């Protein structure tokens, strides 16, 4: 059964890059463009992994993470932060909330896949299906 990955980022460009990174793997991608949509998608889809940006309109990633970790039904979903911000205060606060990893933009596909692969059992798709 395919793994489900939720990408939460206000930039379509980043969601597209994340989707392309996971394309060779047996994953179904779900997208949200802010924290509020992300929480709805997380509750509906129960993803195996969330890739989460910090700075977003409507609801930022830190607020979404706080709400996610306060929800018994969702708090076990692993989260990897994907953001351009690596300031000390932000990182310490986010680490305390509980994330599995943290990747600073810009990033390479293989960096994201390596970090995701440490959290969920990524399996390559058969060659024909990945094309």
């Amino acid at each position: 059964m395919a793994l489900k990955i939720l990408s939460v980022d206000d930039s379509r460009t980043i969601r597209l890059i994340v989707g392309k990174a996971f394309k060779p793997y047996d994953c179904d991608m779900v997208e949200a463009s802010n924290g509020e949509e992300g929480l709805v998608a997380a509750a509906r889809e129960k993803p195996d992994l969330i890739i989460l940006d910090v700075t977003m309109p409507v609801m930022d990633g830190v607020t979404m993470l706080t709400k996610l970790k306060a929800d018994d039904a969702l708090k076990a979903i692993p989260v990897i932060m994907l953001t351009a911000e690596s300031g000390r205060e932000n990182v310490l606060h986010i680490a305390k909330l509980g994330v599995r990893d943290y990747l600073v933009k810009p990033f390479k596909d293989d960096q994201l896949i390596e970090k995701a692969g440490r959290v969920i059992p990524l399996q390559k798709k058969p060659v024909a299906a990945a094309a």
Partner: protein
Amino acid sequence: MAADNQQYDELAKQYGFAPVPESVSRLTQLVAQQYADLDEIAAVIQSDPVLTKRLLRVANSHATCEAEYTIDTVEQAIMRYGMGGALILAMGTPLALALQKAFQTMIGLKLEQFPAHQLVGVNGEHMRGSIGFSGKVNGHVYLRMTLQSSRSVAASIFGCKPEEMNNADEIRDAIGELLNIMTGNFKSNLCDSGLDCKLEPPKVGITDDYSTPIERGGGIERIAFRAGSIHPFVEVTANPWHG
């Protein structure tokens, strides 16, 4: 505080963060104090050939080559350019590094930095992205490039040919994300140095306006890059110690 620093260092190692150059981090911390010792600032800049070169270039902004410099020491440049200028110098480095890394990792292009006057600027309509920041330091970061360059950059990011890149929203989003990445990195350095600030959402659009408003009492630095026919220009304006 020391425990936080140690914890952050451990997390940065665990997460694989690329550190900001020590000289840049130290310079930002020094000028963030507003009344820091000028000799100490000069010593930090002199320890870094890249910072020294940039400061002298900015202090001699009317010169077209080094032979025309009338200010040729770091001390003279700081006296001329001021503490605010030293801060902008410190701010420009993380911006430049982040943009170069973004181009390298997202597009596979190696951006080289050039003195702005050595490159032909953008003419006519061009793509301009801007992000404001406010807090203990106020200012804006601008990213400009020709329409053709912005189309090529977006096409590379989306993995298609420039002629297939016809969606203006996608081009704007791609340029906006480059700007976000660049500015997010530099904001982290400012905050870590005690200059807490918040970023505004990016604004990206086509314009023929080349003017760059400078914050009252502040300064500006222009950084030009080149990778083949793509010439991105970055400008940072700031008024430190505001608020």
